[in-house]
């Protein structure tokens, strides 16, 4: 298991809201290997952003409650460690972040260069790991700057020196996301968490950014956890895909198998909902459940054609149906439809 | 009716806003019941020089003033003046400012531009400074204080309503109803006004507090209603020559102003949190 990088085990997270406690993640189990690009796919409200933020350790402290489970990164349980220690040693160093919206994720009143150099001051690989000092030695600053310029060239940004002197509102959205990717790579991380990195971009730019992200992380052997609601984007860059539905992971499969042999009824309907030449646009019957009072058992059962009594009684356990392909379903598509399903 | 009920329910949960509302209800009750609550109701106009400058006692709860009148009784009747000035001045400003803001925001002709420039000029000077000039010209009386405050206060509402109207007109459903040929009056009163009423309500509540402070300052400067009117600001001004001995003299009206203004401010903050979801998180 030496190539196991990240293991989320039985993670349950809930939020307090006006309407009561909302269980956003329900005993989620999920793992990643070194160098792997994994897509976390789900509709909005499925919990993918919460899972991404839980791994980063930036859930809102006053509203979010981690009720059970653990997050092991390189063998260390991030939830048990000292949060301040994780912030200095892990976040921004071994795990970095590419945000959803490059328009608002830069601080509007500082130049891009000063924000990048601030990151390097605290997080550059040359910086001592537990540095709490605010001094930034001149020699290290110089070396860091060389590396920054180099990376900006690598992400195909024109005239990196001039770019550093600009304010965020002076560069385009695509360029800002390239900057974000460069910043995520600058500190030589093991894992990049990219939270819907292309959703806010023009469709024409999305493909370029995805290609760039895939190419650069492959070259460096960096893992990427990529959340998206866009199956096309997942298809583009992922080695493996994990589907979340209403806070439960339902199916995990290598990208090829995922699209060729989906086994969970929800995965099937998700794929069917892609517009196609034969079927046009097909939606999924019913609505995403309210998480204040979610359906018991498998949360998909009220919308599932194959649901039986046991589906609403107890959530199915994880079963392997192929190489790296796991599933949580009593009635996978590989089996004939259960007789009592119509009831 | 239902929205009013909803508002009350939400207010009841916000303890500080509820406290503010209670202070205002208290002020109104005191003003209404002044003749009953007062121990010396005649002292609004009567003097008893023999009893001047007595400290608080069983007969004079809050002491007596330089004329020997009962400060407690005068304080209660002062609440009436405060309410009348604030209500009429703010009411007039709203009645002038809101239509101007609505029309200027809707039509955007040279005339509406002119109206906005005029209100900008008014806003370019601290309100009390203009109010002093006007009140001084008109002479000290309660009507003139109200007039001075109204003349200098309407631009605040014109500005607010203008900006809100402009942004409300950008709403898709307002655009749609204009496209469907709704008359300007219909659009303004059926769509825009209900949309912006919550910010008008909030500003009016907080504006009441501000107006009470400005009116008291005018009274303090001798520009308010003339003696023997029991106006709070004037009472504080009178007390100055008897300090530090007659410490009670200025205390009661000062506390009264403080509580009343705080009442309006707290209620305004609470209403803002309830009615304006954009700023609701400002107090989370």
């Amino acid at each position, binding site marked *: 298991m030496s190539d196991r990088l990240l293991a989320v085990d039985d993670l349950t997270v809930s939020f307090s809201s006006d309407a009561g406690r909302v269980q956003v993640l329900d005993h989620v189990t999920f793992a990643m290997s070194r160098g792997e690009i994994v897509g976390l796919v789900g509709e909005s409200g499925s919990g993918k952003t919460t899972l991404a933020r839980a791994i980063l350790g930036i859930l809102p402290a006053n509203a979010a409650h981690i009720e059970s489970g653990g997050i092991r990164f390189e063998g260390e349980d991030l939830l048990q460690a000292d949060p301040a220690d994780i*912030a200095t040693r892990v976040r921004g160093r071994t795990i970095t972040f590419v945000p959803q919206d490059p328009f608002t*994720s*830069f601080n509007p009143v500082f130049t891009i260069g000063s924000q990048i150099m601030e990151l390097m001051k605290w997080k550059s690989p040359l910086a001592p790991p537990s540095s709490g000092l605010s001094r930034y030695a001149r020699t290290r600053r110089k070396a860091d700057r060389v590396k920054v310029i180099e990376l900006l060239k690598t992400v195909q940004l024109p005239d990196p020196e001039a770019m550093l002197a600009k304010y965020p509102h002076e560069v385009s959205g695509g360029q800002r996301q390239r900057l974000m990717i460069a910043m995520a790579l600058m500190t030589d991380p093991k894992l990049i968490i990219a939270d819907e990195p292309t959703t806010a971009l023009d469709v024409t730019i999305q493909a370029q950014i995805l290609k760039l992200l895939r190419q650069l992380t492959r070259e460096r052997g960096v893992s990427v956890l990529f959340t998206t609601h866009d199956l096309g984007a997942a298809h583009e860059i992922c080695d493996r895909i994990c589907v979340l539905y209403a806070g439960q992971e339902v199916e995990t499969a290598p990208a090829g198998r995922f699209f060729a042999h989906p086994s969970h009824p929800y995965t099937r309907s998700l794929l069917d909902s892609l517009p196609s030449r034969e079927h046009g646009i097909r939606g999924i019957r019913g609505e995403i459940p309210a998480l204040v009072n979610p359906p018991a058992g498998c949360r998909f059962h009220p919308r599932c054609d194959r649901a039986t009594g046991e589906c609403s009684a107890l959530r199915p356990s994880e079963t392997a149906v192929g190489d790296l392909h796991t599933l949580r379903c009593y009635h996978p598509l590989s089996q004939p439809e259960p007789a009592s399903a119509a009831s | 009716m239902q929205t009013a009920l909803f508002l009350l329910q939400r207010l009841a949960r916000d303890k500080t806003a509820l406290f503010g509302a209670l202070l205002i209800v208290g002020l109104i009750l005191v003003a209404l019941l002044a003749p009953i609550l007062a121990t010396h109701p005649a002292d609004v106009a009567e003097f008893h020089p023999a009893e001047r400058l007595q400290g608080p006692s069983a007969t004079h709860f809050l002491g007596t003033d330089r004329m020997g009148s009962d400060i407690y009784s005068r304080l209660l009747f002062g609440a009436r003046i405060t309410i009348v000035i604030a209500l009429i001045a703010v009411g007039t400003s709203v009645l002038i400012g809101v239509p101007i803001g609505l029309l200027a925001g809707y039509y955007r002709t040279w005339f509406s531009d002119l109206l906005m420039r005029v209100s900008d000029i008014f806003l370019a000077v601290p309100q009390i*400074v203009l109010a*002093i000039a006007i009140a001084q*010209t008109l002479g000290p009386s309660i009507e003139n204080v109200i007039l001075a405050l109204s003349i200098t206060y309407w631009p605040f509402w014109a500005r607010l309503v203008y900006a809100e109207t402009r942004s409300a007109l950008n709403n898709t459903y307002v655009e749609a109803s204009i496209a469907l040929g709704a008359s300007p009056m219909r659009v303004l009163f059926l769509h825009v006004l209900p949309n912006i009423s919550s910010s008008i309500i909030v500003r009016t509540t907080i504006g009441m507090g501000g107006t009470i402070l400005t009116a*008291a300052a005018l009274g303090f400067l001798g520009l308010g209603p003339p003696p023997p009117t029991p106006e709070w600001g004037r009472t504080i001004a009178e007390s100055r020559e008897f300090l530090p001995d007659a410490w009670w003299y200025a205390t009661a009206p000062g506390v009264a*102003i*403080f509580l009343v203004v705080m009442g309006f401010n707290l209620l305004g903050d609470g209403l803002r949190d309830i009615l304006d979801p954009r700023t609701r998180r*400002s107090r989370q």
Partner: protein
Amino acid sequence: MRIIALVLKRLTWFVPTLVGLLLIVFTVSHIIPANPAVVLAGEGATQAQIDAIKEKFGLDQPLPVQFWRYLKSVVSGDFGTSLYTQRPIAEDLLTRVPATLELTLITIVIAALLGIPLGVIAAARRNSFIDHALRFFTVSGLAIASFWLAILFQLLFAMKLGWTPLQGRADSWGPDPVTGFFVIDAIIQGDWDIFSDVVSHLVLPVMTLAFPAMATIVRFTRAGVLDAINSNYVLYEQAMGLPQRVIVWKYVLRNALIGTVTQIGLIFGILLAGAVVVESVFDWPGLGLYAVNSILRSDYNGIMGFTLITGTIFILVNLLVDILHGTIDPRGAG
């Protein structure tokens, strides 16, 4: 270049605003009174005196002509003569500008130095004890009548405790006038006895004025910080593990301060308004005291002159704030 364009744009607005202000003051002084000559002549004037004034000030001319004359005289620095001191009002007022500016500027600096950190702390620890305490403080600061607070401070600190002087700007004459700002003049003169005397006279008026100003600053800073804390860029900075103190005191604060700076104009207005009454309580020889004395003596020209000067100062401050905002906010001021 952007800044120069901004300055030019604001300056083109400056002149019409001043003319508008003059028009308002003119309306108040020449049109609202049924018979301005009677007002100008003061109480108890004879008919002959009134007629003389009517002719002297051209009050028998049509209103546009009167306004044009008024405009010309004000532009040439002639605000009329004080009916009480018989001195030119412009001179009287100019000698008093430094006293008011010294008071308000020191207040604004102190209110900002205390209010900004307190606003940040209130936001960073919202719903903590300190946040609730500060909320009580800001609500009080905006509800208290400054003239009453001034009297309370006098009663407590000057009369009962004897820690500070009761009123005035200095015992005796104060420092030799150079700038008119006593604190600076005392430093120039190098006389530390006078300096401490001047400072001790400043304590109570500054405390009185600073209370509402600070309350406003704390409120705006807190709201601005909360907005920034909930923003995507702070989420990003946290996700990248930047130290919390760097995020709050550098990145959040800079954003919140831009909002606070735009409020300085508003706060200065509160201070000018407050100065009128506070100066009269503390017998502080500034513009406000001059206005109050003019009111007491029915010195009509004095009040109009005060309105003009105060309005001009306020417009100028707002102009500076706009330019400052344009300078510190890279996105440019709206």
